[in-house]
């Protein structure tokens, strides 16, 4: 028998469990998925249970996976518990793995001594250029917005980071508070919605 399982929009591990059940009861199964994690989990299922596996890319990130039973399929039964135990249900898609967001919440690094803190932040921002991969976003808020002004000692580095594709968000409220509206020389003025969303979406936050 041949069946189709539409697993679009289902949360991990639902798609792979549906796929597993279907291929146990049918010879050919088409599973429709719309996320990377489901695809990878079903790929693993196929390899574990020795099913034929092929993927067809459709529009909008949708994929049709064809699972076909072979003679070897099911010879080494795998129970659902074992499958789910090995599943990766990470929320973060692969391409964003390691996405680093840097928080510049002050124009100095660390507490204790302002002169030292000034040296450290200059050193820190310069060193960001050498990180691999580069941070995806740098967020400047509170006194951190002073690092994005014309006279900033790290302006040159921020500029190079921006040119390398790093998105630099500068807190609008803070710019307004410090009356630096006409002096911001790098980054784009942003708001708390973007700032909170970016922070929430980060894999790691770096806060010097």
């Amino acid at each position, binding site marked *: 028998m041949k069946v189709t399982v539409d697993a679009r929009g289902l949360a991990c591990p639902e798609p792979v469990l549906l796929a597993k059940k279907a291929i146990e009861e049918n010879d050919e199964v088409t599973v429709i998925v719309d996320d990377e994690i489901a695809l990878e989990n079903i790929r693993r299922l196929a390899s574990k249970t020795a099913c034929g596996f092929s993927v067809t890319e459709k529009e909008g990130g949708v994929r049709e996976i064809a699972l076909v039973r072979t003679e070897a399929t099911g010879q080494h039964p795998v129970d659902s518990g074992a499958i789910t135990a090995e599943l990766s249900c990470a929320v973060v898609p692969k391409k964003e793995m390691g996405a680093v967001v840097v928080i510049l919440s002050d124009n100095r690094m660390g507490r204790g001594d302002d002169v*030292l803190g000034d*040296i450290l932040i*200059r*050193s820190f921002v*310069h060193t960001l250029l050498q990180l691999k991969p580069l941070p995806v976003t740098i967020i400047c808020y509170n006194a951190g917005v002073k690092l994005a002004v014309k006279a900033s*000692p790290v302006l040159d580095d921020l500029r190079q980071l921006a040119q390398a594709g790093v998105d630099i968000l500068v807190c609008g409220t803070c710019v307004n508070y410090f009356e630096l509206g006409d002096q911001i020389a790098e980054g784009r003025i942003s708001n708390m919605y973007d700032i909170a969303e970016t922070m929430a979406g980060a894999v790691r936050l770096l806060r010097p």
Partner: protein
Amino acid sequence: MREPQEFIVFLFPSVSYVLKAEKILKEQGIVHKLIPVPRHISSDCGVCLRVAVGQQERVAGVLQGRVDWERTVFL
């Protein structure tokens, strides 16, 4: 975008020397940059002053007798 250029770094015995030297370079209007000491030079958590190679003599001249530096390294 700035033209690619060659740099040289001035290394000092301590951070306070770097600060003193930087103050002098600022007064003299010499373009410079305070950067972490590159890893291949030292693994210490230090800072140094980077200037364009062409500025080396001028920097040495203004620092002479005011701030001692340890050595210079081409980047």
